[in-house]
């Protein structure tokens, strides 16, 4: 799904007709961007920078004060087609806190209720959603979501959104509180949905390493304005940007850049520790000056 924001501003205070035109400072200020179908987009910024407000506009929880939001070239707000927002899947922080049914199946199928689908179709959809999040249907469908591990619970919660077949998936800090293997598995899942189903994925992250490793594009939000928009490797090596957020450049980028400066690598991306060590040892061996 392609998303377009045209001069979007948002303020929580409504302008009153008779008072002098006092408006609270906007939470979002004249945002103008296009997010193409199939992007893996990370959003970063401090709490209070407007991230959540921005995401809520995309899901139609809020409508812009001025400007408009277009989903595949249609403005659901002005054209009175709020059902378009149904194509946006929204996964809140700690989504597993919202699990409530006695079985995994019921929890995932809950969102399908109002569609009044025949039993077989419903089962088919749940089966497919569970396949997408890599939970074995037979093994998990009758289990209580509450007895699963943290990573599994989160996957059930994600399946409950995926079952509605969204075209855009929004996740608010999806890896908070997960251990490394669960984080790795979650991103494998997101990449797979992104590549195989062409799902556009937008997620909020506080982990710069995670952004460098997984995003195709980074939007950095400060005081309601995008102050950076581009490839994570480029933006997160920009000293001015890092300074303005008080961020520390991810180690992978620092080392990769130094190796480029020394002519040890020509890669423009970021090197893993092993790749960096390989490149260094290669050059030192070539010069044959390794002191034993």
């Amino acid at each position, binding site marked *: 799904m392609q998303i377009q924001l045209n001069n979007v501003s948002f303020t929580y205070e409504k302008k009153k007709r008779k008072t002098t035109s006092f408006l609270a400072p906007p939470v979002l200020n004249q945002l103008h961007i296009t997010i193409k179908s199939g992007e893996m987009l990370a959003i970063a910024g401090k*709490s209070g920078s407007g991230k959540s407000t921005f995401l809520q506009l995309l899901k139609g929880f809020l409508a812009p004060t001025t400007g408009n939001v277009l989903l595949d070239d249609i403005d659901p707000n002005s054209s009175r087609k709020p059902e378009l927002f149904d194509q946006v899947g929204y996964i809140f922080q700690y989504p597993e806190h919202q699990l409530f049914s006695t079985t995994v199946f019921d929890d995932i199928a809950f969102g399908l209720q109002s569609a009044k689908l025949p039993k077989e179709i419903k089962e088919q959809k749940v089966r497919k959603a569970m396949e997408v999040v890599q939970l074995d249907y037979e093994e998990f469908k009758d289990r209580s979501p509450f007895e699963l591990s943290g990573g599994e619970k989160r996957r059930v919660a994600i399946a409950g959104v995926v079952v509605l077949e969204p075209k855009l998936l929004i996740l608010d800090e999806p890896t908070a509180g997960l251990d490394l293997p669960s984080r790795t598995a979650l991103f494998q899942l997101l990449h797979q949905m992104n590549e195989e189903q062409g799902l556009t994925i937008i997620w909020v992250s506080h982990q710069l390493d995670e952004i460098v490793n997984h995003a195709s594009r980074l939007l950095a939000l400060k005081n309601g304005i995008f102050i950076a928009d581009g490839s994570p490797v480029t933006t997160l090596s920009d000293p001015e940007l890092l300074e303005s957020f008080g961020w520390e450049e991810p180690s992978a980028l620092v*080392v990769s850049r130094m190796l480029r400066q020394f002519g040890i690598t020509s890669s423009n991306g970021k090197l893993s520790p092993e790749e960096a060590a390989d490149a260094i*040892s290669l050059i030192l061996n070539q010069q044959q000056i390794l002191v034993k």
Partner: protein
Amino acid sequence: MIEIQNASFSYTEWEDEEDTQYTSRVLHQITSSIKPNEFVALLGRNGSGKSSLTRLLNGIELPSEGSVQVEGRFTHVSQSIPLIRRAVQIVFQNPENQQVGMTVGEDIAFGLSNIGYPQHQIQERIAWAIDLVGLDADEDRPVTHLSGGEQQKLALASVLALSPRYLILDEATSMLDPVARKQFVRTLHEARKRQPFALIYITHHLEEVLEADRWILFRNGHLYLDGSPDQFLTNEALLSECGLELPYYHALALSLQGKGIPVSTSLGIEELRELLCRFN
């Protein structure tokens, strides 16, 4: 001193329809101790038993077998519980779940009134605690006006006001942005200098606990290994078995050492630059 002797812990669940009882054991015969003023990191995968153990330490839960003693008092002796709870405090992941007051001052005062802190000294103590954590807010500030990082500092101030001997942080930084995270960790260590206490730190991020005296690794409810960070930092396979990832520079140092390139384990950007300059 906290002494954990052969402590096991199981959750018991009843299956209504069949009227049968299930127990799932989440901790298996843990024996360990935590000394005053020590900095101990508890590490391991989600569900490996870290948080369950911390709940035994201040008597929120009692071991199903074995025992836990805090400063010589057993947690299963109910008269000891108030003293133990005061000695062992916890800060959790989500600051919003830990707030009890409408304002910064009320939030800190709540715990103090509960332990019977002299009324006329509470005001002074609030100011002391705010200063200790470097919270840039006066006591009348509504808690809802604080940022995530400030809220977590407030949670810290509220427990430190009670002068705990042991402080447990259960992934207390996982909801903070990188800047707030760094500030929180700095605040914590500065506070420890002014008012020493043992720190029991649960995290998935090793870079936050490189300074710890000990790392305890959990696996499937068992205390798997207990040692100094240096012992583990050279063993990538072992860490990954426990779901942990070496910080970038440590992984790079290990890789380089493996190729016979002489670098220190605490390799940093300056050392790397020197190495490259020397050979260039």
